[in-house]
């Protein structure tokens, strides 16, 4: 019996992220494991208090690249499903900027696939982050390693 096609989903959105919706998308009868991740805006950047973040993107390319990344993770880790959502616009502290859910027959592939998606997204998707500080000093653009660019 042929395996059903894995569920591949990705989106850029300006609305608050819904991790449970992504988990529902990747759920499968044959998946014994669902692993999920939320990237949440933190209150501090190297001891400076952060007020809010702004995310922007080259949206056409980021959408395509996210689609390709999801398919790549499914293929590399034998996933039964992978769903990736990234938010754009202004985020307050504590809001999620990225949500990922993956499913697999067993937990090894699911954990590894989820890790791969967040690690690879940071260096391969044309999305930019700007941090604004409570001390009123200049906002900074932050790169994949968390350092100013």
């Amino acid at each position, binding site marked *: 019996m042929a395996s059903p096609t894995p569920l591949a989903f990705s989106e850029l959105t300006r609305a608050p992220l819904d991790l449970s919706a992504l988990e529902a998308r990747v759920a499968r009868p044959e998946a014994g494991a669902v692993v999920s991740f939320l*990237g949440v805006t933190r209150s501090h950047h190297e001891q400076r208090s952060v007020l809010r973040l702004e*995310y*922007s*993107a*080259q949206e*056409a*390319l*980021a959408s*395509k*690249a996210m689609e390709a990344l999801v398919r790549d993770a499914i293929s590399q880790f034998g996933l039964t499903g992978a769903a990736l959502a*990234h938010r754009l616009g202004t985020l307050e502290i504590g809001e999620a*900027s*990225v949500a990922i859910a993956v499913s697999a027959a067993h937990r090894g592939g699911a954990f590894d696939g989820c890790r791969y998606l*967040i690690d690879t*997204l*940071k*260096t*391969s*998707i*044309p*999305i*930019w*982050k*700007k941090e604004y500080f409570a001390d009123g000093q200049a906002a900074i*653009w*932050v*790169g*994949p390693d968390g350092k100013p*660019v």
Partner: protein
Amino acid sequence: MFVTLRYHAFVREETGRDSERLELPIGATAGTALEAFARRHPTLAARARHFKFALNDEFAPSGAPLMEGAVLDLLPPFGGG
């Protein structure tokens, strides 16, 4: 030939523009366009060395040849996730 450079993040802020039309010689590449950009915006020249490229909404290497009407995004280091 004319190409359109598109700007993002701090490049957009510091040039004050979303995009800019440049006249380049036939045979120009993404790298050639970046050099022209750096001459036109010298305060961004050092950071420009770390930019990646998208040509007509696909990732492209610096050697990618440009054609009339091409749209080239200069992509500063990413900060998603």
